[in-house]
């Protein structure tokens, strides 16, 4: 129902999701996120490119993960929102909570820039 693929790219953990991100599939994501957010600086990208449906449990999971990442001096960026997901993000004003990008590359770029800002 929900497929998780993960990779590490330039010090960022990328989680690619496909399928339905809902109440009964969210716990796997929650587990992965809490684990990924354990060590500072916790930089995570959640690629929703393959997600055609998500619910408020899924949103809660992302918010929780994002807060953990920020606690660990990092952040959680989301990208690849399809229309069914985008309209929900808009209705919920989730752009106030998350940095949202078109795709993984743009999200990665943004992390690289944050990094250099810190390094400088």
């Amino acid at each position, binding site marked *: 129902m929900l497929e998780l693929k993960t990779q590490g790219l330039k010090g960022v953990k990328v989680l690619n999701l496909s399928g339905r991100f*809902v*109440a009964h599939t969210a716990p796997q994501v929650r587990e992965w996120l809490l684990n990924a957010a354990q060590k500072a600086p916790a930089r995570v990208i959640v690629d929703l490119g393959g997600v055609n*449906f998500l*619910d408020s449990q899924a949103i*809660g999971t992302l*918010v929780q993960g994002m807060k953990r990442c920020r606690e660990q001096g990092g952040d959680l960026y989301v990208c690849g929102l399809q229309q069914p997901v985008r*309209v929900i993000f808009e*209705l*919920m004003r989730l752009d*106030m909570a998350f940095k949202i990008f078109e795709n993984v590359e743009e999200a990665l770029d943004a992390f690289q820039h944050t990094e250099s800002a810190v390094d400088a």
Partner: protein
Amino acid sequence: MSELVELTIPAKHRYTEVVRACLQAFLEQIPGMAETDTFHFLLFVVHEACTNVIQHAYDKGLKGATVTVKTAVDEQTGQLVIELRDGGHSFDPLLADWPPPSSWQKETHNHQIAYRLLSVPEPDPLWETSRGLYFMAQVFDEVLYLPEEGNNRWIMMKELDLVAASESGKTILWS
């Protein structure tokens, strides 16, 4: 009221997918509907309403627990009516932590106590829960909660903008 589709599922999260599929197929019969944001909102809020029942009304996990979803469109008015029924326990919306009591209006509906969901304050984007009822209030024109003896009903209504569709005549509406 016009033609009715009625679906009963076990009150388990995985079956909300069957509700989604059913409602989607129902709505896709309406020309142009699948291209609207409303289409996605409706799939979302009905899923939320089911999830709420499974999580809150059946939190004690009744054996044989079910959720029944009835869906109809009044072809005269273009009003979509969705009714959810569960056999879980009732709650008093005015005593709940969220949304605030001012979100509800207590009234009678066919000689029965009903709670009408008015507008719900926008949840903080950083909250991890408490979005379901806000969504429902945003998407539907009317939301009524009717606690009954051993039953709860949620009645949700929305005018669909079927102008484009109805221009080409009523027969097209459901072709």
